[in-house]
């Protein structure tokens, strides 16, 4: 079961410490994890591209174009995820990217919209922790931390367990329960839920203005 994501950088949940950069905060986190006893297990990468519906298909009603996000996750290397903001999430194979090229008439790529997070994976007992730096273009915009608890498949069951684990290495900066849990209580967790959370995270980071990286809020 993998739930959640929290972001860093300079937003309320995890303020970058005074005088430190994103890089150093990431190093701080990874050192804490290693002290806890986690083992490094390679790297990960999650990226996201934005497309908006082309003007030609909007029709006379003048409705606002919808934004579609196409995401990849190195944890599922053979899949490609496509989602709308409040809408369904499609899980397809990697040929979907080629399909998007063919659908140029309907979906146009937004300029300079690619955002991604890269970092290292750690394994601690049955927990999988991924700490990554969120970058948009050349600049680092924040930190993402993902924690997955493998054995449990129902999202709402193990939230307290996860919270306790987070507190052990994040200290007091732990977030509230993700919205993904709210609506369905006994549903089995799926990778699409992870991607929805990443999408929300990236949107949040994108909306922030470019802030000096060594600031505190």
């Amino acid at each position, binding site marked *: 079961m993998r739930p959640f994501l929290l972001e860093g950088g300079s937003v309320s949940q995890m303020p970058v410490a005074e005088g430190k950069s994103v890089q150093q905060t990431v190093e701080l986190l990874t050192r804490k994890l290693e002290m806890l006893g986690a083992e490094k297990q390679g790297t990960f990468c999650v990226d996201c591209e934005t497309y908006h519906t082309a003007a030609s298909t909007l029709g006379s009603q003048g409705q606002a174009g919808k934004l579609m996000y196409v995401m990849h996750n190195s944890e599922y290397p053979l899949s490609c995820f496509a989602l709308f903001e409040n809408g369904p999430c499609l899980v397809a194979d990697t040929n979907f990217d080629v399909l998007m090229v063919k659908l140029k008439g309907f979906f146009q790529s937004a300029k300079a919209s690619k955002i991604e997070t890269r970092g290292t994976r750690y394994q601690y007992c049955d927990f999988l922790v991924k700490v990554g730096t969120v970058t948009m273009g050349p600049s680092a915009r924040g930190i993402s931390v993902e924690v997955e608890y493998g054995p449990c498949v*129902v999202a709402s069951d193990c939230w*307290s367990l996860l919270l*306790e684990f987070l507190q052990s290495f994040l200290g007091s900066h732990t977030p509230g329960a993700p919205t993904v849990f709210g609506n369905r209580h*006994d549903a*089995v967790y799926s990778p699409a839920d992870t991607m929805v959370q990443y999408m929300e995270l990236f949107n949040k980071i994108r909306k922030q203005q470019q802030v000096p990286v060594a600031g505190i809020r």
Partner: protein
Amino acid sequence: MADVLSVGVNLEAFAQAISAIQALRSSVSRVFDCLKDGMRNKETLEGREKAFIANFQDNLHSVNRDLNELERLSNLVGKPSENHPLHNSGLLSLDPVQDKTPLYSQLLQAYKWSNKLQYHAGLASGLLNQQSLKRSANQMGVSAKRRPKAQPTTLVLPPQYVDDVISRIDRMFPEMSIHLSRPNGTSAMLLVTLGKVLKVIVVMRSLFIDRTIVKGYNENVYAEDGKLDIWSKSNYQVFQKVTDHATTALLHYQLPQMPDVVVRSFMTWLRSYIKLFQAPCQRCGKFLQDGLPPTWRDFRTLEAFHDTCRQ
């Protein structure tokens, strides 16, 4: 060895059949000798031919007689019993190299030993129950009735009975479902699914629980050939821990005379794992200890404890 294998064979008829074969062999060789010797020297050609033919006919008649005798005896001998008490391992007795690999005789000895042990243990438990330390009058009354007569062995129960017991237990708890199958012979294999938390494979021997393996809800419990995979461990440390605890539990809940009570208690204990990820430890109050949730369930009170926190 002979009495175990050839339970249905008539030994006397067997011995008679062997001597009948010898008789048949000798009469056949007499026929060929007669042919080889040819005609005896007699006065006339006719006399010689007649004597030869008469001799030849006699020999053929004796062959016929012996053959019929052999057929009659072979029908009496009967087939060796099809259902070996040891099933396929009875075929080990056909191994000709007995001194280098005395597997079969050792196997038999092991079975005899364990059966004797079972019998003696049954007698001993009957005697010990008489000397119980409980003070209630009821208990004395019950055991006075049940004098230690030869208890029927609960090791060989009809499979229908086992099916009934399991289906009754299946209906007991709504969040636990038990599926019974017999892919390998008569021992039942149960696949117990507890809510959306875990799956347990229980291998049984008549109504006694032999082994258990606990795996996660999303893990695959079937091998490539479609049968239940009863050997591979779970990929998650928490379920490996719960498997160890389950093995301890099945050693703890023991009652040779009433195995269905044992299975019921085991399932009740197992059901307490429905809140594996939600219950904090009763002793330290936390959820995680070394990365593991409270995996121990007390055998009497069913409370959750960490493995390192249990008393």
